C-alpha cells in the first residue's frame, strides 16, 4: 500500500528531487550489500560450527584412530608417529576445556592452519589445498557458466516456443538427464569414452609428462582432460536449468507486460530477449547462487571418478588415508569457497533487477 521512494516525475521540476532520489538509491544498494555480507558471515559461522560439532561428536578417539589408519599403510618412523600424534592432539585440542577447544578450533581456521598432512607428511594441509583449489575452481566455474547459459537459453526458447518439436524433445532429454546422480552419469561417460570409444583422457588434470607451465601444449592438455569431467557436470546442470527456465518463462509469457507488448506488435525477438528472458534471468541468478553448494557436491564426485586433481579428489583420498587435518581443512575451505561464490553471484543481482536498489 505504501510504497517507498516512488517519485512523482511531474514534480521533478526542481533538480534537488533527483539528487534526493539518487541518494536513496545509493543507500539502498549499500543496505543490500551489507545484508549480503551479513549472510556470508552467517553461512561461514554456521557451516564451520557444524563441522566442529561433527568432529567432536565422535565417540571414538580420533587421534588414535587416525594414527592407526596412517601407520597401517606401512612402516613409519616411531618419532614421526609421535610427531603426528602431538600435532593431532593439538589440532583436536584434546585435554583442554571445551571452551578452549572451541577457541583453538576457530583460531586455527581463521589462520587457515590445519597442521601438517598425515598422508603427505610433512606437507602442510594448506599447501595441498592451495594446489587443488585452482583445479576445482576452474572446472566448476567453466562448467557452471556453460551449463547455466546453455540451460537458460534453451529453456527460455522452449518456454517461449512451446510448440516447437525440437525444443520439446530437448525437454524430454533434460527431464531424463536431470535426476540422474552425478556419479552414475560420470560412470556412464567413463564407460563410453574410456572403454567403448576411447578418444578422450579419462583420468587426471593434464598429461603426466608435461610440466605445469603456461605453454600451449600444457593448456591444450588441461582442456582436453577437462572435457569429460566438465561434460558430466554440464549435462546434468543444463537439464536442471533448462527445466527451471522453461517453467519460469511459460509463466512469464502470460504476464500482462508480455501480452501488452505482443498486442503492440513489438518484434518477437525483442519480446523474447528484453521482456521474457531478461525478466527470467534475475530469479535464475538467485537460483544459481542457491544451488552452488549442490554443484560443488557434484564436482566432488566428478573429480573422484575422473581422478581430477581438485578438492574433491583430495577430500576422498584423505578419508581413505585417514588424514583428519586434511579432511577438516578441505571441508572448511569448501564452505568458505562456496559461500564466497554465492556472495559474488548475489552481488551481481542488482545489475539485473533495478528494483533491488529501492527496496
Amino acid at each position: 500500500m505504501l510504497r517507498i521512494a516512488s517519485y512523482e516525475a511531474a514534480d521533478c521540476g526542481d533538480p534537488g528531487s533527483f539528487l534526493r532520489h539518487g541518494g536513496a538509491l545509493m543507500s539502498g544498494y549499500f543496505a543490500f550489500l551489507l545484508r549480503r555480507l551479513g549472510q556470508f558471515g552467517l553461512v561461514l559461522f554456521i557451516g564451520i560450527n557444524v563441522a566442529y560439532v561433527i568432529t567432536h561428536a565422535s565417540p571414538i578417539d580420533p587421534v588414535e584412530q587416525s594414527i592407526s589408519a596412517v601407520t597401517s599403510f606401512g612402516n613409519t618412523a616411531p618419532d614421526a608417529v609421535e610427531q603426528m600424534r602431538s600435532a593431532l592432539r593439538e589440532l583436536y585440542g584434546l585435554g583442554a576445556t571445551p571452551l578452549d577447544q572451541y577457541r583453538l578450533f576457530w583460531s586455527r581456521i581463521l589462520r587457515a592452519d590445519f597442521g601438517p598432512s598425515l598422508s603427505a607428511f610433512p606437507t602442510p594441509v594448506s599447501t595441498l589445498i592451495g594446489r587443488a583449489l585452482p583445479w576445482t575452481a576452474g572446472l566448476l566455474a567453466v562448467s557452471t557458466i556453460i551449463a547455466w547459459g546453455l540451460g537458460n537459453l534453451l529453456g527460455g526458447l522452449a518456454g517461449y516456443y512451446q510448440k516447437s518439436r525440437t525444443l520439446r524433445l530437448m525437454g524430454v532429454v533434460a527431464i531424463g538427464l536431470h535426476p540422474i546422480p552425478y556419479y552414475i552419469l560420470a560412470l556412464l561417460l567413463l564407460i563410453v569414452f574410456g572403454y567403448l570409444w576411447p578418444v578422450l583422457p579419462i583420468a587426471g588434470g593434464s598429461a603426466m609428462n608435461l610440466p605445469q607451465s603456461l605453454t600451449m601444449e600444457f593448456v591444450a592438455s588441461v582442456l582436453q582432460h577437462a572435457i569429460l569431467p566438465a561434460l558430466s557436470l554440464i549435462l546434468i546442470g543444463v537439464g536442471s536449468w533448462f527445466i527451471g527456465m522453461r517453467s519460469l518463462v511459460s509463466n512469464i509469457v502470460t504476464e500482462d507486460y508480455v501480452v501488452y507488448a505482443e498486442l503492440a506488435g513489438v518484434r518477437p525477438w525483442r519480446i523474447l530477449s528484453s521482456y521474457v528472458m531478461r525478466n527470467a534471468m534475475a530469479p535464475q541468478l538467485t537460483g544459481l547462487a542457491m544451488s552452488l553448494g549442490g554443484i560443488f557436491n557434484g564436482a566432488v564426485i566428478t573429480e573422484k571418478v575422473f581422478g581430477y586433481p581438485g578438492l574433491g579428489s583430495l577430500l576422498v583420498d584423505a578419508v581413505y588415508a585417514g588424514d583428519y587435518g586434511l579432511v577438516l581443512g578441505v571441508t572448511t575451505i569448501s564452505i568458505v569457497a562456496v559461500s564466497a561464490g554465492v556472495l559474488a553471484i548475489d552481488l551481481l543481482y542488482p545489475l539485473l533487477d533495478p528494483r533491488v536498489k529501492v527496496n
Partner: protein
Amino acid sequence: MHAQAVPDVPSEAVPPMLSVRDLRTYYRANRLGIKREVKAVDGISLTVRRGEIYGLAGESGSGKSTLLNCVAGAIRPPMEIVGGDIDFAFLSGYGGLHRAPPAEVARVRWRHLSYIMQGSMNVLNPLRRLRSVFVDFAYPHVGGTRQQFERQLHAHLARLNLDRSVLSAYPHELSGGMRQRATVALATVCRPDLIIADEPTTALDVLVQKEVLGMIRGIQREMGSSVLLVTHDMGVHAHVSDRLGIMYAGHLVEEAGTAEIFRNPLHPYTKHLISSLPRIGDDAPRCGLGGAPPNLADPPLGCRFHPRCPLAMKVCSGEAPAMLETAPGHRVACFAYNQSGGA
C-alpha cells in the same frame, strides 16, 4: 498524417472505424470429462464510428473484456471465436485480427490500433526504462533516426503535459497515476486510428481518474481517433463516451447516444444501473437489484435478464428479444418495447 482528417458528421458513406457483426465467443473447457461451454459473448453487433468514443458498460461477467480481447486479436485457449466478423476501416476483408495474415497484423498493431489497459503496474515491463518501452512499441512504426524519434517523443509528452524525465524512470519509480498517464502517452504516440481502453481508470484515485480521462478525451479529440472504452463505471461513461452500449450476460441490451441513454434509458437493466447510483445531495433511498448475475455456463432461457427483471413477462422466459431501433440511433433488446413480441 493520415488520421488528421476527422469527419465531424458520421455519414453512411464513410465506413465505420470498427464494426462487429454477430460475434460469438465461447470458453470451452473440459473438466473431469464434462464439457463446459461458457458463452461469454453471444451474438453481439456494434459499430464504432470515426472520431467517437464508444463506451461499453457492464458488470463483471457481462463479456465486455472478452469482446475487447476479440477485437484486439488476443485469443488464447480456452477462449474461442465461434462466429461473427470484426472489420476495421484499416483492415477489412479478413473478419478480424485473428484471421488476418501475420504481416497484416504486424502492419496494423500500434500504428492503427493501440490499447490502454487496466493496471499499469503490470503492463509495463518492470525491468525496462520507459524510454526503451516507447522505442520497442513505437519506433518501428514511426521510423526515421533515433534523434528524430526522441524529438517526436518529447513533443508528444509535452502535448500531454508530461515531463520528459518519465522516460528515464523504471515503472516502479512512478506513482500509479503517473504510470497510467505514461501508458496513455504510449498508446497515442503513433496517432492510431482506434484506441481500445479497458477499464483505464478503475484502479486510480478519483482525482487522478479525472485527469487521465481528460487526457484520453483531449488527445482523442485532437487526433480524431476513435476509442472503444470499456468500464463498469457509469460515471465515467457519462463524462467521456459519445455513444454507449450496455452489456448484460454476453448480450448487448441497449445502445444509444450517451445523452439519450441517461435521459431516456429503456432497458430495465439500464434504468437500474443509472437510478441505483447514489448522488451527493440526493437523499432519496434506493434499492439494489435482487438476484445475481447469471451463470454463463448455464444461462437462463429467453432474455437473460428476466429472472431479475421487474417488468418480466411470460414471453421473456421463452424467447430472447432482438435488438430493435425505437428511435434513430437508439436500439434496445426488450419485449416491453417490441411490438411483435408482446406487451
